[in-house]
């Protein structure tokens, strides 16, 4: 008995899928993955997935951006070559600070946004030319697929999934 056998249960409605997820989890089976064509609100909670920490990284990246902008404006405008440009007070950073706020703001947003997106790509393992990991092309259109690993309990799982309203159930070998 190969251990990398999985069951694919296919649904055609997100409400039915949500109920099925709750039922399967209620029966203490581990759900490996769920494929959906669009975001299903509350699915992560139903699956018991840990909340994302992407927002926290974005906050930290934003602070980094602010710091970079503050250093950049301080070094170039105040420390390195403090010229009198149209009477702006280049004596200290804080005195000329209002003029630096637009760049402080923009770099904060720039860092927060871009670094967060890159973090997202890395954590999700998405990049150009990446081979798609889709078990069934219909899940990008109008079907929902739940993947459950099989551990010598194929019949029990099949009957459980049938009772949840799956439109198709198949056991496949995962390579």
């Amino acid at each position, binding site marked *: 008995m190969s251990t990398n056998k999985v069951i694919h249960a296919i649904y055609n409605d997100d409400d039915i899928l949500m109920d099925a997820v709750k039922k399967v989890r209620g029966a203490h089976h581990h759900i490996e993955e769920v494929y959906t064509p669009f975001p299903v609100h*509350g699915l992560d*909670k139903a699956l018991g997935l840990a909340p994302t920490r992407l927002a926290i990284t974005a906050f930290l990246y934003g602070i980094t951006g602010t710091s970079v902008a503050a250093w950049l404006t301080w070094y170039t405008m105040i420390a390195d070559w403090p010229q009198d440009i149209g*009477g*702006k007070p280049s004596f200290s950073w804080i005195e000329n600070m*209002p*003029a630096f706020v637009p760049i402080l703001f923009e770099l904060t947003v720039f860092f927060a946004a871009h670094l967060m997106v890159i973090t997202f790509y890395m954590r999700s393992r998405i990049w150009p030319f990446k081979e798609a990991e889709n078990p069934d092309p219909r899940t990008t259109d109008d079907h929902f697929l739940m993947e459950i690993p099989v551990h010598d309990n194929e019949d029990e799982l099949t009957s459980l999934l049938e009772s949840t309203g799956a439109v198709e159930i198949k056991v496949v070998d995962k390579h």
Partner: protein
Amino acid sequence: MYQFSGKLKMLAIVLMALGLLGTVISFMNTPSTLEEAKEILAAQEASHHGGHGSSHGSDAHHVGADHKTEDKHVTEHKEASKDDHSNEKVSDQVEHVVGDHGDETVADHAKHDDGKTLINETKEEHAKHVGDSTHAKETVTDHAKHVVGSHGDETVKEHSEHANEDAANHAEDTRLTDSLNGHVTDKAHTNPTHGSEDHGGADAHHGDHHAEHAFHQMQNKPWSAVYVSLIFFLGISLLVFAFYAAQRVAHAGWSVVLFRVMEAITANIHYVSVVMLIFIILTAMHANHLFPWMAEGTFDPLSDNYDPIVDGKKWWMNLPGWVIRSVFYLAAWNVFRFIIRKKSIQQDNGDLKLHKNLYNISVGFVVVFMITESMMSWDWIMGIDPHWFSTLFGWYVLATLLVSALTVICLVTLYLRSRGHLPLVNDSHIHDLAKFMFGFSVFWTYLWFAQFMLIWYADMPEETVYFALRFKEYIVPFIGMLALNFIFPILLLINSDFKTVPWVIVIAGAFILVGHYVDLYVMIMPGTVGAQWGIGIGEISAFLFFLGLFIFATFNAFSKANPVPKGNPFLHESETHHYYIIEHRGEDNAHH
């Protein structure tokens, strides 16, 4: 139905009584004669300046106090050489030049009705001025520069030389000083009583003028204290109403269970409007001098008080127009509020025609509100500095009041929910309100900075003087409110889960409300009381009075109608409103 608890009613009445009492005391404590004012000034000086001499000591920290800069500069320079304060004094003095000779300070002068209004100096007066040799000899650099500034007959070249010299000497203040000098050269405004007979004038004489000026500011103080709180509470109630109308216009689904809370708060419009009406009548009868352009003789070319700049704005700034507009705003808001509330209660029968009707009226109100709010902010707040203008001021006032209004909705909702009177309100509704508090805090900061930075950057003297005064006299509240209104709410409310935790919201809300009170304070006080400001019994009492009135009006109105607007077609959507990402903490309805 909610029952207005006896305890809360008692609290409201006690607050109002305390507030009234304190306000009366603060009016009685106001000096009624010049002599009393002088005593107070002497006491202030003793505490501020370690008793270093005569009355010009307090002048030094008093922008636009007087026009006797010549005397003062002479005396100050003499003292500066033997005084530890020399650095501080020099920089003070530079700003003093700015304050005294920029035409913006006409605001300060005209408002006190004391015959100090600037007029365009005639050529003959110029000649007399320049011819006053003792005056010219005694001056040092700054003073010379000032002479250049006020006497436009010096060459531009000379003027710029002086300005450069000045730039080297007074790093911090150069921007302002330079540009103001240029400005003064153009306009050549000076005080009519500023003739040669004053130049060798005694300190005592000069002190009299200062004391008189300060006396008028002290007399304005209790009035301003009431006015700040009045505008604060009127504005908040109005903006709650505007937000409520916007929710109806937008067919918002989430906020329907909060409608009765918002309606209850808007009841305060009626109560505060009565106070505002009394204030408008008293102001029009010259019972106070908050609005300098209302002073006698402002529009009369033959008067000492004549103000050509304000005269040019006469088509807008005139007493009948001001009163008519003010009464119109109040009437419009009250009528809309009365009609919408009445129909909203009727809508409990589920009549969909009424819903459509309410939608139409709300659209009308939103339009009327946007126009009246802008004009209200010009008439009631910007009019205090009649020489200054800013195009986004109406929006800025709107942002201040809107974020306070959302905070008040949120706090009242939290209170009522914690007492179990709002069974349909769940954490998602609170989360949405807190999001609005967060978002509009940022919006306020954006507008504050947009207004400040554009003026700071261009540094045109007729605009800059507004912020120069605030930086000089009000630096702590002016910069402190940025922490209260921006930094604290941002840090407290940025976390999604925190937006549902009542005590976090209450703390953030307290910061926001205090911060925006300070914001209004810094909008109004510099133009009315100048350097004589303080948060004392008058300010606190006025706030407590209107707080009591607010509590009474709100909870009284809330007890008059069903807390659930059960005829609203969006009620079910609101009841099941659920923002799935947040942790729900049990203070929730059972519908999601």
